[in-house]
């Protein structure tokens, strides 16, 4: 009884621990993002690679000054990525007719990979569309960086004890506090290459631009569906998105959607394994028991057979002994009778002899 209770408890604990809220993630519900979520539309055909957005971001987020000033456009010759001191960078690519530019920063996924893989829930998808990070709980495992399909989160590798993951917040805090009404990069763009607004509206705007400027854009809004959709959206010229160094093979499934299947199996293992393994154990135990009993029975039968045989032999021996005895008695009696008869005959003979002797004598 005690063992059974313990096993039950273990099973229950396992299920509670592993099930948690995963059932929701694996459920059939679809999440189309927060209705009023905001985002930014980047129009590559308007970007001139001036790096003003980088400077604006740096200032608003109080990031350390870069080794080379933002006015130095020679930096663009080498492809860069975001790092722990830089939330956004502009890269230059070679198009069919002149240079192309693309700004990189966190895309603020509608169902963020970083948030779904974080084992301490350090990332939050906010109703305003931004994805923010809480350094107060972060363990520094860097799974968010592994999982991010856009290679955005960066890590303070040179901080030995309190490293943080650094990335664009869509200026969530500053906008919440009312310090600014749009992200730092958007405010600083002199060419209106960046537009801040409700994501739904941005998609409308992008479609409108395509309609009004036939032949100027490739007919795709990058981020509308990529990785389940992002709040940062991109428009590109006719060179397309791959010319801007953007991957077009990411698919439309978000990371939570991709990993929902494997996660759904987890509670099943906890649910079924104890029964399965316990069953195997019980079967083996029973097999052993049956074998033991069969052995016992066989021994018993063998013993019984031996005993019966012995008894039969004994009986036979007794019988023959009895027979011998009777025969011996009979033999003795017979011999005694014979002896007696012989004695009688002898006596008779002796009598006759005496009578004969008497007759001769008269």
């Amino acid at each position, binding site marked *: 009884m005690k063992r059974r209770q313990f096993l039950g408890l273990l099973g229950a604990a396992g299920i509670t621990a592993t099930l948690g809220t995963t059932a929701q993630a694996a459920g059939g519900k679809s999440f189309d993002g927060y209705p009023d979520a905001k985002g930014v539309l980047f129009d590559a055909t308007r970007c001139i690679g001036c790096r003003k957005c980088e400077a604006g971001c740096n200032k608003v987020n109080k990031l350390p000054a870069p080794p080379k000033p933002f006015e130095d456009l020679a930096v663009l010759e080498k492809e860069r990525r975001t790092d722990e001191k830089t939330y956004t960078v502009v890269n230059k690519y070679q198009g069919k007719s002149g240079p192309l530019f693309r700004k990189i920063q966190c895309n603020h996924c509608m169902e963020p990979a970083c948030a779904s893989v974080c084992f301490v829930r350090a990332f939050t998808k906010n109703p305003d569309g931004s994805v923010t990070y809480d350094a107060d709980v972060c363990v520094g495992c860097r799974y968010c960086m592994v999982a991010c399909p856009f290679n955005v989160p960066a*890590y303070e590798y040179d901080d030995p004890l309190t490293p943080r993951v650094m990335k664009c917040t869509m200026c969530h805090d500053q906008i919440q506090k009312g310090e600014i009404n749009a992200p730092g990069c958007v405010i600083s763009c002199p060419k209106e290459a960046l537009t801040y607004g409700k994501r739904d509206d941005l998609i409308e705007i992008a479609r409108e631009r395509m309609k009004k400027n036939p032949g100027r854009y490739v007919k795709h809004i990058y981020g509308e569906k990529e990785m389940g959709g992002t709040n940062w959206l991109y428009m590109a010229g006719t060179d397309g998105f791959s010319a801007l160094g953007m991957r077009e093979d990411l698919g439309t499934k978000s990371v939570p959607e991709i990993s929902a299947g494997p996660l759904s199996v987890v509670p099943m293992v906890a649910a079924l394994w104890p029964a399965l393994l316990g069953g195997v154990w019980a079967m083996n135990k029973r097999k052993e028991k049956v074998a033991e009993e069969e052995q016992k029975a066989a021994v018993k039968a063998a013993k019984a057979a031996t005993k019966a045989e012995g008894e039969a032999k004994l009986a036979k021996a007794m019988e023959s002994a009895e027979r011998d005895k009777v025969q011996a008695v009979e033999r003795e009696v017979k011999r005694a009778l014979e002896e007696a008869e012989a004695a009688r005959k002898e006596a008779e003979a002796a009598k006759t002899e005496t009578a004969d002797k008497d007759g001769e004598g008269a």
Partner: protein
Amino acid sequence: MTTENKSLMTPVNIITGIILAIGLVITVLRFTKGLGTVTNLDQNNPWGVWIGFDLLCGVALAAGGYTTSSACYLFGMKKYHSAVRPAILTAFLGYALVVFALHFDVGRPYRLVYPIFLQPGTTSLLYEVGLCVFLYVTVLAIEFSPAALEWLGMKKLRNTVHKLTLALTIFGVVLSTLHQSSLGALYIAVPSKLHPLWYSPYLAVLFFVSSIPAGLSMVIFEGTLAHKPWHHMMDKTHLDEHEGVILGFARGASIALAAYFCVKLVAVAYDNNWHYLATGWGAWWLVEVLGFVALPSLLYAIGSREKNIKLIKWTAALTVVGIILNRFNVSMVAFNWQLPADQRYFPSLMEIMLSIFVVTVGVTVYRFIVSRMPIFFEHPEYKDAH
């Protein structure tokens, strides 16, 4: 019953001492200068050899614990009983070292309990790994404790713990199934970064199934290594059963590898990735799958059929190398395969040295324990008490 009668300045001890000293220097550097100084990790390559080897290989190669104990206690193969204690000890040390090594890799090791006690991120497969490893280390510690308690002469407690064997074994298999597979499932989140020949929705199954031959092979491999130095510690039962264990485990590993080979093929077939086999990556995949999965499966079969112990021992080593190769491929070689060569990761010397340091710590603790506690022999007071 100790081997410490001789001088401590044996070649093995000297090498151990040097490695431990180097490890301590790297430890100081890691916690004063940061990961940037010690490792070659960067913003695109956040996980290196400390995850690829210390975590992934460490856990896979410690699978001998649950495979051996379930064979003996659940599947009724009592003839492997003498192999259980060494296997549980190695598993316990393996997992303890995994946790130890993680303290170097994560940025804030003092927060490693946060996901379990403060703010669990239940949608994360890493949370599952963390929880299961945490629980399993505890289970292994309890499973191992009878050996320590017998050594310490704490009879009553030992007998109480011993009664938990069945429950602990089942719980251990549940936890092992979960985290062995979850380690593979970690990479399900990165279809865009892991090469299609290694990426699969079946990554969880692949990691779990491959952990079985990994565990069985490690038991054979270690048994071989331990046999000479600790021959005098082994009792008659252990020595008598030794060959049976090797033959039986070789059969098991052969079948498990064959199954793993099939899952490998299904994984490629599922996404119809056959055309990649014609590329350089395909050649590398074939090396792994033919040379380190199919070949050892065949060699194990031949070895157990012909009772060729020597062949089996070499095959065990081949299998262990193959599992390490697979975990390296998933976590490092085929990860970020699309990045240009100059942005790819290769471990720094200090990273490699620290991994060697971690293994050395494990071997040293192992040597300490088997020289003292009843691992290779049954304690005279507890003979037939199982």
